[in-house]
């Protein structure tokens, strides 16, 4: 089996328009959640989110591209450009033939659905733009990355709600580890912050009206975010031979299904995914220094996740650090695991643990070191990234410092 390293990372999200800006915000514990700005927001009862502001697609993409790129594709292309540029890879010949793009998204082109439904239902129009379908399809982002960078290997999109990115990155990792590909472009993207997207989430009544406070006793729900993060996963010897800068190593993953409830999380399902990732990576559990939590800020997730971590790690659960960066960038749904992988890279490469901000009151059911409110400088050798989706589909990745 081959070793797999990360040689490129890119992002755009509410905390920053690239990786350095995002990591700086995480280090400073800055909150990217603010008042939502879009049409008909006054008809929503939830008016906050981790929205990407000051982003002007018209200044970046031409008119023809804009007719084809939904906002989730725009985010993906921005992040992919940063990641692939950083990796220094150019794709031709055999490398191009085997490198693919595996991305996660839960909703795909939600904004395109929203705009066009409005046009035909509310405005009574009987005709829509000819590219509505290629613009909104869930695989549009992966396809545009493949076209832009000449990536002709296996490409597809994974859609497993809040675990989409972790499932996608697990697949990409497995492909490079097995020798199927020398490199893969992977990550995820989401853009649901439009009237219909937020209205749908409102219906579930699990959204906070004021802030995302994971693990805090007074937490009152999740807050949506948007954006993308993209990575280049590369076979270690391939990266070393060309002198690439290595950000971290991906060492294992596990995926499990709760097989129980469509929305309520299961401690057993989460615990099996966490212990499965440790087993796959062959890491003794007391080596894990940091976990980037799923940590949505809902009552159900946070206590279930903490119970699962306590079960898997036993007494070591009290020594490791676990934080939820959703408190800063919001919940990017299908893109969330990708943005959160950046916090794992920062922990391993820079020795900086991103905090859980908005933490106000300890909750006896979440009695772990959640790195409240302020980042911490601690050298960490191994980290995990958790994602537990609606539908009971879980995916956990394990990473190591290089």
């Amino acid at each position, binding site marked *: 089996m081959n070793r797999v390293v990360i040689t490129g990372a890119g992002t755009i999200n509410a905390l920053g328009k690239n990786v350095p800006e995002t990591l700086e915000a995480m280090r400073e514990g800055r909150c990217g959640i603010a008042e939502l700005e879009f049409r008909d927001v006054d008809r929503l009862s939830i008016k906050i989110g981790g929205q990407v502001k000051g982003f002007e697609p018209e200044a970046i993409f031409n008119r023809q591209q804009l007719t084809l790129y939904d906002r989730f594709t725009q985010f993906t292309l921005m992040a992919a450009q940063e990641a692939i540029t950083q990796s220094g890879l150019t794709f031709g010949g055999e490398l191009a033939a085997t490198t693919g793009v595996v991305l996660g998204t839960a909703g795909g082109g939600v904004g395109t659905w929203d705009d066009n439904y409005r046009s035909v239902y509310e405005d009574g129009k009987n005709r829509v733009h000819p590219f509505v379908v290629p613009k909104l399809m869930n695989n549009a982002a992966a396809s545009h990355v493949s076209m832009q960078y000449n990536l002709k290997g296996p490409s597809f999109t994974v859609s497993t709600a809040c675990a989409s990115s972790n499932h996608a990155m697990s697949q990409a990792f497995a492909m490079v580890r097995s020798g199927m590909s020398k490199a893969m472009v992977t990550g995820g993207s989401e853009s649901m912050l439009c009237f219909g997207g937020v209205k749908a989430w409102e219906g579930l*009544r699990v959204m906070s009206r004021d802030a995302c406070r994971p693990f805090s006793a007074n937490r009152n729900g999740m807050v949506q975010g948007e954006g993308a993060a993209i990575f280049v996963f590369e076979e270690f010897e391939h990266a070393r031979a060309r002198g690439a800068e290595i950000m971290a190593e991906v060492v294992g993953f596990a995926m499990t299904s709760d097989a129980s409830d469509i929305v*309520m999380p299961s401690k057993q399902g989460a615990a099996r995914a966490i212990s499965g990732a440790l087993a796959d990576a062959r890491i003794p559990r007391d080596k894990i220094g940091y976990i980037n939590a799923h940590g949505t800020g*809902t009552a*159900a997730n946070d206590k279930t996740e903490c119970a699962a971590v306590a079960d898997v790690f036993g007494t070591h659960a009290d020594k490791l650090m676990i934080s939820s960066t959703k408190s800063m960038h919001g919940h990017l749904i299908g893109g969330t695991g990708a943005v959160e992988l950046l916090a794992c890279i920062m922990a391993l490469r820079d020795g900086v643990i991103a905090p859980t901000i908005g933490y106000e009151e300890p909750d006896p059911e979440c009695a772990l070191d959640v790195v409240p409110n302020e980042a911490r400088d601690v050298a960490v050798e191994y980290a995990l990234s958790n994602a537990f989706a609606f539908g009971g589909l879980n995916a956990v990745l394990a990473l190591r410092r290089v």
Partner: protein
Amino acid sequence: MDVETKVREIIAEQALLDVDEVQMDSTLESLGVDSLGLVESIFAIEEAFDINIPFNANNPAESDFDISSVRSIVEGIQRLVDEKTS
């Protein structure tokens, strides 16, 4: 529309029971209505009476809306309906 009858009908539908089995002192738990059933019931009640119920599924106990029994739900709805018409 009679609030009590309508609320009992909606809860009965969620619980897959006859309306007669939904008594005023029944709790949602005793009727077998889970958290998803509760959110659906609240939605159906809001639609039936054209009101907004201040209910947060994250923390039902801290919502400004008492769901401890069918009676408390009916009383809460009645108040909201009265506020709307007054």
